[in-house]
């Protein structure tokens, strides 16, 4: 058990190092430099030169990389050229928004998917099962950003039920009202994400429950005369739940990758939107930090899922 986890963590270290080098080089290869935008007829070339030198942009790449890493371990990711504030502060304020949305979507996904998967398995091969299968399948096939655009059009603009931009209303007072406003802003993207992201959990839970239904302990419970409701509640569901929990890690990584789209459609000030904006401003420091953070979060999500799965399923463990 611990061996598996230790080994996974050890493999992560070179992966993160390679990722950081790759990301750093790619950001360097991007056209233009952060000061291109400030060039105007009045700008003094010598001053620009001086700025470049102060920021270490003339050093060889490994030198710049090394400086970056050293700063990284001091918790300093540099300054954003676009916003003129430390990247760590910039990103942490955005990260809160993104993580709230991801967490909310994940919880909602489980709220929708667990009953569906259970119900489908209970009525295996009958009409409800087919309906749920068609539903998960249709929602899985349609590209998510199309759903977001249509969703924001219908519920945000035509019906006017939900806000279409931002993460909080500008008139909200601090306290309960601001929490309410925040919640109101993530409601639509969260519900859409949950409604259209159920496929993995539903399919997996369904097959788990169907397997459990035919297992010996369920047959024993049934022959003892345990009521059908209790069999599902105490015997089947409890055994199928843990592997399902393992999907949370994967589903969060999926949501992070989708956050680029969700946040663009809803102009939601999270890390995804920050990335899109930084790309157009060539804000290297922000871009490198964000790609690295997303990569590490991806790794941690997969790691979390793998650990839960290896606890549940002894076959995965390394001896």
């Amino acid at each position, binding site marked *: 058990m611990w061996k598996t986890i230790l080994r996974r963590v050890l493999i992560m270290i070179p992966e993160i190092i390679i990722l950081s080098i790759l990301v750093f080089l790619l950001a360097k290869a991007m*056209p233009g430099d952060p000061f291109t935008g400030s060039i105007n007829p009045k700008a003094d070339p010598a001053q620009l030169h001086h700025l470049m030198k102060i920021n270490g942009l003339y050093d060889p790449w490994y030198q710049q990389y090394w400086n970056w890493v050293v700063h990284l371990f001091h918790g300093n990711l540099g300054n954003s050229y676009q916003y003129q504030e430390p990247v760590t502060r910039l990103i942490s304020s955005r990260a809160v928004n993104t993580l709230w949305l991801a967490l909310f979507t994940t919880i909602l996904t489980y709220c929708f998917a667990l009953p569906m998967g259970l119900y489908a398995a209970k009525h295996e091969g009958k009409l409800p099962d087919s309906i749920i299968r068609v539903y998960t399948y249709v929602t899985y096939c349609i590209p998510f950003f199309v759903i977001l655009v249509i969703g924001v059009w219908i519920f945000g603009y035509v019906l006017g039920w939900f806000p279409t931009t931002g993460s909080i209303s500008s008139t909200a007072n601090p306290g309960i009202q601001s929490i309410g406003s925040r919640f109101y802003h993530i409601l639509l993207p969260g519900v859409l994400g949950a409604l259209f992201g159920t496929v993995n959990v539903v399919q997996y839970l369904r097959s788990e429950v169907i397997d459990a239904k035919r297992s010996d302990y369920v047959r024993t419970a049934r022959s003892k005369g345990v009521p059908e409701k209790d069999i599902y509640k105490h015997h089947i569901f409890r055994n199928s739940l843990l592997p399902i929990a393992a999907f949370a890690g994967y589903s969060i990584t999926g949501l992070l990758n989708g956050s680029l789209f969700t946040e663009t459609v809803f102009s939601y000030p999270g890390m995804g939107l920050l990335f899109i904006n930084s790309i157009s401003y060539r804000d290297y420091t922000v871009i490198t930090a964000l790609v690295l953070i997303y990569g590490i979060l991806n*790794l941690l999500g997969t790691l979390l899922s793998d650990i839960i799965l290896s606890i549940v399923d002894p076959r995965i463990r390394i001896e």
Partner: protein
Amino acid sequence: MEENLNKHSNISAADLDRLTKEANEEATPSSAKIIWNEFKADKPAMAALIIIIAFIIFVMIASLFIDTPKMMETNILNYNAAPGSNGFLLGADTGGRSVGQQLIVGARNSIGIAIGLTIISSTFGICWGLISGYFNGYIDWGMQRVYDFMMMLPMTMMIIVLVTIIKNYNAVTLTLIFSIFYWEGTSRLIRSRTLSESEKDYVAASKTSGTGSFKIIFHEIMPNISSLIIVDTTLSFAENIGVETGLSYLGFGLPLQTPSLGTLIANANDPNNITQYWWTWLPAALLIIVLCLSISYVGQVVRRAADASQRHGAAD
């Protein structure tokens, strides 16, 4: 050999013909035939297949008659012309460009890129999965680490960064960039199947008789997992339509002067368009939904055909 057989066997030519015929009848039909039977048994699937093929042929031919640079010229007189007015069947966008024509050319571009991406990434993923699954040990371990690393990369972000780096990129370079990141799913699937396949007797027999590894992989294992390959390719085709259109929607796919279904949907980013001028983006969105659903539906039928226990069409 045949001469030898004729000399020593006492089966007449007529008998031999009859026996061959009987053997052919009893043999499992080829996967292509099974899939065809499945489509014949499932009418909606047949309809979906016909719609997809007809649509693809239509946009390919129709876009030949459309002069793209001329179509993309701004014409202020037709600013957001409503559908049916000024001779625009589907209206015009903010630049006075025909939405209908952009839809046709855009669909051609998006489908073309999806096809290219599917071919390149599936071929690569299949080879990767086959090789990794067949050679256990260090090769597999190394290839799996590369796979793990690729899975860790935030794909959409990496693609956007690459697109900004490459100057003057076009449809071909874009397809190649996408292909770097979209072979993992296929490779994983093929690898797990190859792992179980290479433990079978026919592989062991070929190994002992000295057949080369690559011949075993591509001439023996690959045909045996061909149904899985067909299923996976069809399903990833549907997904790949979403890949290009999604990136174009964000503004990092095809360049602005090359319409794509994604750039058409990006019209919705303008609050005026999304509220008043629905025709500038909604048709493209609906088209993507219909395309993805029908292609995946076809894929679903192919998957059913590949799994003998689920077939609807009798394979006789």
